[in-house]
């Protein structure tokens, strides 16, 4: 499939709608990252227990 | 049936002893509704346009006031436990309690609403529709609010939680109630909106007491 854009500048400008398009994708990325980071923090807090739980099933 | 009447009478008596609390609800309702002209300006055309909506929002908030504590006293002194064990089904007892609550808190709002309507320059017909809508809608507000009150029973944060849980669920009542007045004012007739509100009222009257009783069981197990 051919790439539609002819230059990186065109791609970033999004036909004049760059602010809207990148604003939408940027905030979505932030929201997803925030959720993933929050989950990782939670897993780290219960780290020893998680390890214990994983080992309980390996044996 | 006599137990039901006894609960109703008892609740009315109890609430009457705390009548200053009832006056607070009414005062809140009137104050909130009076704030809007001060914030938005006193243009009569604007006020006539927003009047019904403002009165409805004020009523919605005012009914929330007493709700968070609706079952709290009964929960703390063990009355709720007694009601659960009583031969009378819990949903019926809940209904009697709510009927008393509605009579003492919401009916005064409905009676005060015409005065606020006049302040906003609503026509007589519009005021009639407003009061009819409030009479049909406030029981639904009480029933929905009671679900929230039952679920948050005994929680420290219940005062904040009840509005957060209950307000989104009360949106249809607000839309239908304010919509009825607006439809009347624009000459379309309030009939369909009031019918919808009546339908909502009947559905909630049938379904909500069991849901509230169930929520009370969850909270007091």
């Amino acid at each position, binding site marked *: 499939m051919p790439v539609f854009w002819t230059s990186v500048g065109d791609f970033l400008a999004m*036909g004049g709608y760059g602010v809207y398009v990148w604003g939408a994708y940027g905030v979505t990325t932030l929201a997803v990252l925030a959720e993933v980071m929050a*989950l990782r923090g939670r897993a780290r807090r219960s780290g020893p227990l998680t390890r214990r739980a994983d080992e309980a099933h390996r044996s | 049936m006599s137990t039901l009447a006894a609960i109703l009478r008892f609740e009315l008596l109890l609430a009457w002893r705390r009548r200053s609390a009832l006056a607070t609800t009414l005062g809140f309702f009137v104050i909130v509704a009076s704030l809007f002209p001060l914030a938005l300006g006193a243009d009569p055309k604007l006020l006539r346009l927003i009047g019904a909506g403002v009165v409805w929002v004020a009523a919605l908030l005012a009914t929330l006031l007493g709700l968070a504590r609706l079952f709290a006293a009964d929960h703390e002194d063990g009355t709720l436990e007694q009601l659960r064990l009583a031969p009378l089904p819990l949903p019926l007892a809940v209904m009697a309690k709510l009927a008393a609550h509605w009579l003492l808190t919401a009916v005064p709002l409905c009676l005060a609403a015409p005065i606020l309507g006049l302040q906003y320059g609503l026509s007589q017909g519009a005021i009639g529709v407003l009061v009819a809508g409030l009479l049909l809608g406030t029981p639904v507000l009480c029933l929905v609010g009671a679900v929230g009150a039952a679920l948050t029973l005994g929680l*420290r944060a219940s005062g904040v939680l009840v509005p957060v849980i209950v307000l989104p669920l009360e*949106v249809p009542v607000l839309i239908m109630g304010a*919509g009825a007045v607006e439809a009347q004012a624009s000459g379309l007739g309030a009939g369909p909106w009031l019918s919808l509100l009546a339908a909502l009222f009947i559905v909630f009257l049938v379904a909500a007491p069991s849901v509230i009783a169930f929520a009370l069981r969850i909270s007091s197990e």
Partner: protein
Amino acid sequence: MATSTAARSMLFRYASPATFYPLAGRLWPWFAAAAVVLALAGLAIGLLVAPTDATQGDAYRIIFIHVPAAWMSMFIYLVMAFYAVLTLGFNTRLSAMMMRSLAPTGAMFTFVALWTGALWGKPTWGTWWVWDARLTSELILFFLYLGFIALQSAIDDTRRADRAGALVALVGAVNVPIIYFSVKWWNTLHQGASVSLTRAPSMARDMLLGMLLMAIACWMYSIAVALVRVRALIVERERDAAWLREAGAAD
């Protein structure tokens, strides 16, 4: 008969947190990997390959996240209501934990749908927000998610939190259609705000493919995140259960 008993016993086996825990641990990396691959493919098609829309210009590229996010936000609430029925009907612990682990993801997708909807609406309709039935319902759905999360996190007793949350999720699910239709009828009264959201489905093949890939990626992401979160919940709640204590004694 025999198969149904076997299926049921298997279902009950995996309905136990202790057995579901390792299963979720084995499954979630696959879902996460699928989400990443599909999202990259969908974004490549949506942002790089698909041509500009004739009427909306490049602003339409927002729908590659907006539409899947809006779908997910509604679908996750339905799944939560389904788990709520299981929780109240069969008293299963795992269903309540699944319900709980889906809620933050649902709220996240609702927020994304609202945000991207505003950014799409501004260039396309000339306004950030319209009080139209779909947008208003989506906003109220966001409030419902917030109410659910607030109630669950305010109750310390896990059994009560599960059951109260389940009841709120169910009452909310029953209310969503009422809200949708009341806003819709209300809108016919206010004709000023009428914006036609239903446009001719003249999407190019690449656009459709991109959106489909993104939608499946959102599914995979939701499943992966819910599985990871349910694992954390299981560990936090079952710290005193036998299967976890014995493992600790073996250290």
